[in-house]
């Protein structure tokens, strides 16, 4: 029945394996995305054939399920502690009863591949499920689905459902297939729900009218943003968990003191340096008049464009650009000295009172390799930086290519109120650098703290952040006891420009219930999943910064427990896929090294007691407080239709 030509489309008999269906379903409920990729193939040839299931999932996504049905035998997955999983796999391999599951990491996606051999006429179905959180960047969320069916599919169906209680401000599917599928994605959008469907026919899939190759090989991207009414953000409460989304608008940018620390060692020669210079020229142009900046460039020596911070006037910017254009990369890499020089410049300016008290201070390190000169020990460099940097400075590290010890950059930044990001040394290095800079170019708030005064609130994720940057979003999550609370109260304190802000909100327990129950695509567990995702990622980062082995062991135990409880593959767990009889096994675990943490998140905060509210934010007046004003005041009041005294 599979070979019937129902839709009248001609299928090649050259290719003995037919891809009967390739289905991708994504549901995003309040930034929490759940994706299922399913493909069904059949071996039409008289010979056994190898069948491959090869998908790419976003870096940092957690696999939650994989199943495979080969010729009627179903393999299901269980999550085990990593070493246990591997031991089981080794046993199966000893009996020759295994098939490899390979995970590898390239660019910012992870490859997930398996290959099985099936007899003639047999059918095979693969299904992979993973979850990830959508981080808001530059004013929107992006959901990327890497489509790689590998061949024409009789039924190719991609469906993305987005459910956002706050309502969607816009939703857009950019053309990422160079016009080949113009008009094929169908968008249906309501105020709080949207559905994007991508179902090209076999003819539309063809690279060209008579080709047998598929043009479906790339990313379907859905971009959207939500409405934001309250500055205090959206507090979504459901099933014993809460998630707080915070992305205030209508605030003036805060002045920033920014130091660019650029690696100009020999390894940067060529496209990397060219692209970095190109990016820096645009970035410097984007500085605001009230910003202060300087440039430190280093190889085995450390140089500065200026020895101190300079106001970002047009002339200074032009001069800095000229300086950067003249850089010729050569020699070794002395990260330690370069960072200490940058920190010295900022500390000195701070100590001399040259910094606007309402400003924020950022260091952006761009490097493509490990230290080769001066202090080489990474932990020592990390210690030096930590000891010298004042706590008003956030350090962001951009690691170009794969020669750099990315974990080191991550630890270095997380330890100093910032994050690291991997940049790929290719022809779009410049746009990646610019894109990253734009994420931190507009600080709007400082010292943001999230408080949840109710005592039955527990397990709150990081709730204190040094900065909030326009276009991004801070997410905090936690647990509460539904039996004890009717409302959940949140208080956010922060400083904007030169003003102290105290924002409050109350979320009712059943606010979301009605909304979620109405939509079959809405994931009722999204709060729990988002909380788990955030918590595990932050624990992974805390683990890499753990000061002692005992602390590290404790964190590891917590992560493992949560990974098993939430049935997800994290760097500490592995997925064992077994046939019902248990005589055949496969293993899926996360790639070696590169402990994934907080991918895509712009913030790495810290934890303070969620119940504590800063002392300066004394409780707000309540309506009864208003009536305490002494005596009836002088007033101008409303219109005559409520007044019995006739007007003239």
């Amino acid at each position, binding site marked *: 029945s599979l070979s019937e030509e129902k839709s009248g489309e001609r299928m090649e008999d050259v290719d003995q394996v037919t891809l009967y269906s390739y289905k991708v379903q994504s549901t995003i409920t309040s930034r929490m995305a759940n994706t299922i990729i399913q493909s069904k193939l059949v071996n039409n040839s008289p010979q056994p054939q190898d069948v491959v299931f090869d998908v790419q999932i976003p870096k940092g996504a957690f696999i939650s399920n994989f199943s495979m049905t080969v010729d009627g035998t179903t393999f299901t997955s269980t999550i085990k502690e990593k070493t246990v999983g591997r031991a089981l796999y080794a046993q199966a391999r000893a009996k020759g009863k295994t098939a490899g599951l390979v995970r590898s990491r390239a660019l910012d996606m992870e490859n997930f591949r398996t290959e099985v051999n099936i007899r003639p006429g047999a059918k095979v179905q693969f299904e992979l499920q993973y979850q990830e959180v959508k981080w808001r960047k530059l004013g929107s969320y992006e959901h990327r689905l890497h489509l790689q069916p590998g061949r024409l599919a009789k039924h190719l169906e991609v469906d993305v459902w987005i459910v956002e209680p706050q309502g969607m401000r816009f939703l857009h599917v950019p053309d990422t297939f160079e016009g080949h599928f113009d008009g094929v994605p169908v968008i249906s959008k309501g105020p709080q729900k949207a559905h994007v469907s991508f179902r090209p026919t076999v003819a539309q899939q063809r690279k060209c009218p008579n080709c047998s190759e598929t043009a479906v090989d790339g990313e379907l991207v859905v971009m959207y943003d939500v409405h934001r009414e309250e500055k205090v953000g959206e507090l979504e409460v459901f099933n014993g968990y809460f998630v707080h989304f915070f992305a205030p608008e*209508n605030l003036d940018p805060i002045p920033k003191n920014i130091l660019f620390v650029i690696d100009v060692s020999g390894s940067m020669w060529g496209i990397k340096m060219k692209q970095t210079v190109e990016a820096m020229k645009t970035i410097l142009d984007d500085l605001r008049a009230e910003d202060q900046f300087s440039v430190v460039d280093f190889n085995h020596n450390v140089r500065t464009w200026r020895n101190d911070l300079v106001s970002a006037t047009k002339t200074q910017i032009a001069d800095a650009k000229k300086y950067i254009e003249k850089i010729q990369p050569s020699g070794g890499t002395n990260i330690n000295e370069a960072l200490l020089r940058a920190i010295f410049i900022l500390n000195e300016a701070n100590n001399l009172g040259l910094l606007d008290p309402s400003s924020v201070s950022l260091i952006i390190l761009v490097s493509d390799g490990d230290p080769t000169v001066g202090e080489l020990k990474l932990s020592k460099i990390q210690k030096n930086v930590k000891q010298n940097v004042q706590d008003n400075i956030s350090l962001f590290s951009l690691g170009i290519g794969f020669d750099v010890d990315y974990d080191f950059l991550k630890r270095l930044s997380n330890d100093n109120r910032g994050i690291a990001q991997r940049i790929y040394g290719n022809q779009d290095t410049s746009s990646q650098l610019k894109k990253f800079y734009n994420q931190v170019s507009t600080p709007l708030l400082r010292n943001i703290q999230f408080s949840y005064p109710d005592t039955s609130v527990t397990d709150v994720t990081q709730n204190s952040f040094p900065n909030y940057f326009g276009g991004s979003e801070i997410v905090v999550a936690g647990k509460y006891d539904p039996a004890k609370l009717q409302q959940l109260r949140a208080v956010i304190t922060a400083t904007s420009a030169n*003003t102290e802000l105290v924002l409050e909100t109350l979320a009712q327990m059943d606010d979301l219930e009605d909304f979620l129950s109405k939509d079959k695509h809405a994931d009722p567990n999204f709060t729990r999943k988002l909380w788990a995702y955030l918590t595990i990622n932050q624990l992974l980062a805390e683990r890499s910064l753990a000061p002692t082995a005992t602390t590290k062991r404790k964190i590891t135990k917590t992560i493992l427990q949560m990974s098993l409880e939430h049935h997800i593959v994290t760097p500490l767990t592995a997925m064992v896929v077994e046939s019902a009889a248990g005589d055949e096994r496969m293993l899926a675990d996360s790639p070696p090294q590169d402990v994934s943490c907080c991918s895509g998140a712009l913030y790495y905060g810290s934890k303070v007691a969620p119940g504590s509210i800063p002392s300066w934010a004394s409780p707000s007046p309540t309506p009864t407080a*208003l009536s305490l004003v002494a005596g009836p005041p002088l007033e101008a*009041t*409303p219109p005559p*239709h409520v007044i019995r*005294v006739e007007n003239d």
Partner: protein
Amino acid sequence: PHFIIYLPKSQKNICFNIDSEPGKILNLVSDPESGIVVNGQLTGAKKPQDGKLSTYFGKLGFYFQSEDMKIEVSVENITISHGSHTSILSWSDTARVMNSRVVVSVNKEKSVTLTLGKEVSFSILLHRVWKKHPVNVDFLGIYIPPSNKFSLKAHGLIGQFMHEPKIYISNERPGKDPKKPEASMDVKGHKLIVTRGLQKDYRTDIVLGTDVPCWFVHNSGKGFIDGCYKDYFVPELYSSLKWP
């Protein structure tokens, strides 16, 4: 808009109203010494009723010169400008913004309270009406508790009463409308005929308000306010009144 002026020494409420054109800006308080200016801009109903277009305060402007701070409260949002920095809060926020001596507190969809130092405060009430109402529009009420922090030079439709004028009410008698007694009121050298009535204080009940008995001065408060109400028009939301 209707005004209720409470005179603590004589324990009397005097009220009057002013109706003018939408867009006009009335000065409520101008105090050259404390640098405080409060103005109200009129907004009109969607259409006239009985041939007359009612007006209300749709926007209030507060300027605290000593803090270099301007605060605009409209029925849409609250804009706080300090020096070159601007923050905008919405009525759907519950928020407090503190800047050295000024605190702006927004009570979601209800009220905004501005306090300058510990001495002076203003409360603004938001009156939301049914969006599709054929006539009514959202409007604001402003409440200013008496304070001795205003200088003798304070003026404006409300500011002039920060220092209580002497009044004498006599000859209370039935009015043309038996339910509305009349009386004579001597104030500022004028002898006015005033009518007994009720006004509303909305602070404790934003919908129904509570009744405040008062003596109503006709002709847009003429005789009770210095000059006439047109003297209090100012060109900009933060303009101060030049008086006399």
